[in-house]
């Protein structure tokens, strides 16, 4: 085993990430300083969201309020799993303590998982609980940093939280997630609303046999994996599908 085989990957990663960081940081500073001209449809949304300049206490209050709403919304989505569509396996509710842990884990961008995604969550829950949080929890941390930068510049107000989170999600996170999602799809990640496939195993009977002696099929769980995967990595979330 040669030197190259071991060290090429780590060094290529560090070098590549450093090189891209220079132009990307310029773009991000340009967006967060509000120097861009949004397309008309986006500008309309931005004007609706803009509730005026906030001082740091108002900004933090908005941030915490937004997280509280995320907590309530995602808690409800997890709790009503048995009654939601896209659940052909008839999965029931996971334990309340695990729901608390999971919801907190996803809104804080931690994504510690005390459940097993494939086993315990339906595709509806994965999309409206999981992918929702993957996008927004990452954006919250970035907004906090931007508020700190503006405060350090000595400005009396630190911007508007709702406009900031809109900028982060729409101009940074969504475009990059689309590109990465596309890469994962070309490599073979599933991207579908279908829940599972029943396939015959290569070795007949590897999953056991039924009472009548027929080989049992293997159930392969699929879902919107490519979308999940791209945002999981880009938002430094890290919870598996």
């Amino acid at each position: 085993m040669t030197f190259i085989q071991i060290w090429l990957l780590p060094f290529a990663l560090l070098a590549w990430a450093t090189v891209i960081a220079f132009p990307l940081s310029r773009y991000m500073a340009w967006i967060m300083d509000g120097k861009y001209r949004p397309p008309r449809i986006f500008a309309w949304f931005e004007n609706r969201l803009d509730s005026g300049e906030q001082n740091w206490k108002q900004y933090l209050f908005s941030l915490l309020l937004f997280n509280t709403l995320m907590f309530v919304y995602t808690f409800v989505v997890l709790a009503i799993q048995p009654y939601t569509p896209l659940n052909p396996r008839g999965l029931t509710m996971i334990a309340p303590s695990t729901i608390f842990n999971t919801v907190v884990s996803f809104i804080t961008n931690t994504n510690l998982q005390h459940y097993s995604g494939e086993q315990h969550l339906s595709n509806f829950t994965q999309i409206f609980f999981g992918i929702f949080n993957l996008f927004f929890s990452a954006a919250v941390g970035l907004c906090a940093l931007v508020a700190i930068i503006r405060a350090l510049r000595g400005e009396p107000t630190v911007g508007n939280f709702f406009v900031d989170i809109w900028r982060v999600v729409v101009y940074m996170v969504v475009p990059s997630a689309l590109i990465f999602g596309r890469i994962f799809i070309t490599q073979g990640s599933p991207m579908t609303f279908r829940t599972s496939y029943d396939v015959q195993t290569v070795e007949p009977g590897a999953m056991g046999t039924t009472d009548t002696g027929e080989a049992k099929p293997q159930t392969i769980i699929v879902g919107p994996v490519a979308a999940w995967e791209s945002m999981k990595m880009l938002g430094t979330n890290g919870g598996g599908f």
Partner: protein
Amino acid sequence: MNSAHPFENPTGFSNFFDTYGMMMFPFALVLMFGRMLNKFRHSLVVFSVMMVMMAGTVLWSVYFDTLKPNPGLTGRSAEQKFEVPSAAAPGGKLTVALPAAASLPVEQHLGNLEGKEMRFGTSAGATFDALTTDVTCGAVNAEEDSLNPISGASPMAGMWLNCVYGGKGVGMINMLTFIIVGLFVAGMMVGRTPEYLGKKIGAREVTFAMIAILVHPVFILWPSGLFAGTTWGMQAISNAGAHGFSQILYQFSSATANNGSAFDGLGVTYGFWNATNPAPSAVPFDIAAGLCMLFGRYLPIIAPVAMAASLGAKKASPFGLGTLRDDGMTFGFLLLGTVFIIGALLFLPACVLGPVAEHFGPMPFGG
């Protein structure tokens, strides 16, 4: 299992983008900090400090995992004897012998291959594990439980420092608190009022910075101690001794650092509400880890924002002869030293009880 699953990470090509994806924004955010403050050289120094630490964790993890055999599989050529104090034994000393053992017949010239996804190569797992905790991502493409013991210290160090690029935004915020504390200490040493961006750092700023820094060890070490000392932890771990302690320590490090990776093997899954056979400690772990995540997330966001607001409102003083430049080597080493010393003071004892103790093999402690 997460990024080792062929659906989530089908090829070596997708593995590169998987690993790069989590580094993209944290790297750029550090430079964005400098661009928005018009202090680009300052952010380059911070970037370099983080790069040194990140390269260190990756080198550590790969060196001890890919280039070293698994110590659990290698044998002992000769019998080893330990003398341990014991009240029951005559003379107060008891000799414990570890017999010689043949190594298991496993080919190990490729390093420790247990728990690795071989589609990506031998070093991809160790690299990913080190990077994922540095940038507080928490996805894994190799089982962290199966890393060589001393190599497992590298992912933990990433979470304990929590500022080696760090998560989106919060990593740079954590680094900012280290910058304030470092400048404060340096100011005390030379007897000048410390300044950052030309503004004087006062008691209020240092108080807020210390709150943000101390939340981290409090919510890692206290619950780890609580669970390691009670049946809650004992029922959940799947290995006895130092490795079991590592499992508990990792769980709370991961929760408080908002990382989310798991040193698997801990029985914490309750499953469905009507599950017939849930893990016995699932509920205490769910709630304790949940609270750690809440405090570990919001206090280190609230305190630094208050700190920045208080610092930013001050009048900037002109740059003088005795001012410490924030864009030079001196500042870089000061920052690196601050992070290392604070990190080591807080977490080295726990590290010695977990990965380091496991690395040195079974140690009889008397009894």
